[in-house]
């Protein structure tokens, strides 16, 4: 692999500022020690982000009806598998290669090039190539996880996986290269620290186009204008999923500092942890308060979505906000979720787990909020980035969904849907012994 700019260029002012102000201290750490610290941050951070795949799986399995629970498990484990494989085959090069400002490179088969370090030439700021690949890969998988929840209970397995392969191998990497690969968005000053737009909104756009093309579940939007309600089969598992996601987000945002080789980096990662946690906490409480206010009762699933909304909102800039600002950014995320869920119903877009409000809407909000705390960011560039990613991902996703729809077909038959995908696609039941109504 050639040297890549990675997210470095993209980290924007915040890091620059802090890097400058701490620079006197930076010199002190031995480059090889720094190298290990940086790699360790990627590996430990990457591990917990990997575990987010389990978090999405549990959240989704808890929010679908039990007749589709096994299928959503299979989708989640296989999409994570596919993301890893595709990112190895083409994704990483496409994202971080140096071809031009619009895509990284068309090479296939990623391989670690640590020759320099192995020969003893360890530069400041170094890290093992593989640790970086691993960390970037789990981000790619996260984007794919978002899609499965929205489209649950009606999309067929193999077309979904085909979409996932293209999303993780091509769509996500290309738009990612624009910013984190040092491409044109980065050059125009767009700022997205850990991926509110590049990961969460990107996944959200892929999801919403899929939801529109796939259509709603039978019975979701009734002729009389009423909304069909299909309560999730296991709220405890959904709650577990959100806790796992919350945990993973420390790796997601903290690891996106991309360095732990100095006191300044340790400070940055620590502050990111705090802001990430407070934004999620505020998201929970704001969602609870909003649903209490609007509906006169607290909805657990809204509180869960609120946590994710807060987390997604802080992801675009978890470093520069004060804790108080992080609370505010997260709280608005929580409110947005509660407001957007019924809005989607009005638009007759069927999003089974609330991924669009949490990831797409809060991803946009978080990206717009960056200039509030990061003086190097500007609203224009943020808007540009949001629109560019939105247009690109939506357009390509739409084309791909339509192509799949008109070739192999994407939607389970009416009867398959009624009986549940577990029985019709997998031939088994998630809870074969339990009587469900």
């Amino acid at each position, binding site marked *: 692999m050639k040297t890549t700019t990675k997210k470095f260029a993209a980290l924007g002012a915040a890091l620059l500022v802090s890097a400058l102000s701490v620079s006197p201290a930076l010199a002190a750490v031995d480059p090889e020690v720094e190298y290990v610290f940086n790699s360790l941050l990627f590996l430990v951070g990457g591990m917990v982000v990997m575990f987010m795949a389990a978090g999405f799986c549990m959240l989704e399995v808890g929010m679908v009806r039990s007749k589709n629970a096994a299928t959503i498990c299979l989708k989640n484990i296989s999409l994570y598998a596919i993301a890893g494989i595709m990112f190895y085959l083409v994704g990483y090069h496409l994202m971080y290669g140096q071809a031009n400002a619009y895509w990284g490179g068309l090479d296939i088969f990623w391989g670690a090039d640590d020759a320099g370090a192995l020969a003893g030439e360890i530069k400041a700021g170094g890290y093992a190539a593989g640790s970086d690949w691993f960390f970037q890969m789990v981000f790619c998988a996260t984007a794919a996880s978002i899609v499965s929840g929205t489209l649950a209970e009606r999309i067929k397995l193999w077309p979904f996986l085909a979409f996932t392969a293209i999303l993780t191998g091509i769509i996500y990497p290309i738009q990612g290269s624009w910013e984190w690969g040092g491409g044109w968005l980065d050059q125009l000053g767009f700022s997205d620290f850990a991926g509110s737009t590049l990961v969460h909104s990107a996944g959200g756009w892929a999801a919403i186009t899929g939801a529109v093309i796939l259509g709603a579940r039978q019975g979701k939007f009734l002729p009389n204008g009423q909304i069909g309600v299909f309560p999730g089969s296991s709220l405890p598992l959904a709650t577990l999923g959100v806790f796992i996601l919350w945990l993973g987000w420390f790796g997601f945002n903290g690891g996106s500092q991309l360095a732990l080789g100095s006191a300044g980096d340790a400070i940055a990662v620590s502050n990111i942890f705090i802001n990430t946690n407070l934004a999620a906490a505020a998201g929970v409480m704001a969602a609870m308060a909003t649903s209490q206010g609007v509906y006169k009762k607290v*909805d657990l699933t809204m509180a869960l979505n609120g946590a994710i909304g807060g987390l997604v909102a802080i992801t675009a800039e978890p470093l520069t906000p004060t804790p108080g600002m992080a609370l505010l950014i997260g709280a608005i995320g929580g409110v947005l979720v*509660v407001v957007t869920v019924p809005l989607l119903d009005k638009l007759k877009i069927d999003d089974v787990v609330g991924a669009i409000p949490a990831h797409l809407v809060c991803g946009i909000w978080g990206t717009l909020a960056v200039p509030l705390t990061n003086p190097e960011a500007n609203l224009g560039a943020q808007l540009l980035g949001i629109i560019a990613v939105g247009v690109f991902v939506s357009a390509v996703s739409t084309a791909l969904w339509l192509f799949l729809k008109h070739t192999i077909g994407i939607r389970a038959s009416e009867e398959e849907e009624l009986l549940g995908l577990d029985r019709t696609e997998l031939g088994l039941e998630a809870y074969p012994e339990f009587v469900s109504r």
Partner: protein
Amino acid sequence: MKMITAVIKPFKLDEVREALVALGVNGLTACEVKGYGRQKGHKEIYRGAEYAVSFIPKVRIDVAVPTDLAEKVVEEIINHAKTDQIGDGKIFVTSIENVVRIRTGETDADAL
């Protein structure tokens, strides 16, 4: 012999069972059901969408008793399943032609 089938509120099951046992009833069979009735269920809001909960969890009990005990059993069920609120449930009485205890092959009243 009569089969007394009662649909009652779930949290009344133990009280009813104890009352029947006190009456000399030796056995009964219970089953979780969902009831639709005048107690119309209620509106709930889930993720911002209002919907009607049509069916309400109830317990159905079946008690086979000698004909002469039937009236008493119905009374006791009423006494103990009643909360005076809508949805307390119904009792249905039907005739059974025969009862057999599987273990012994005994029939009729002996089988109870």
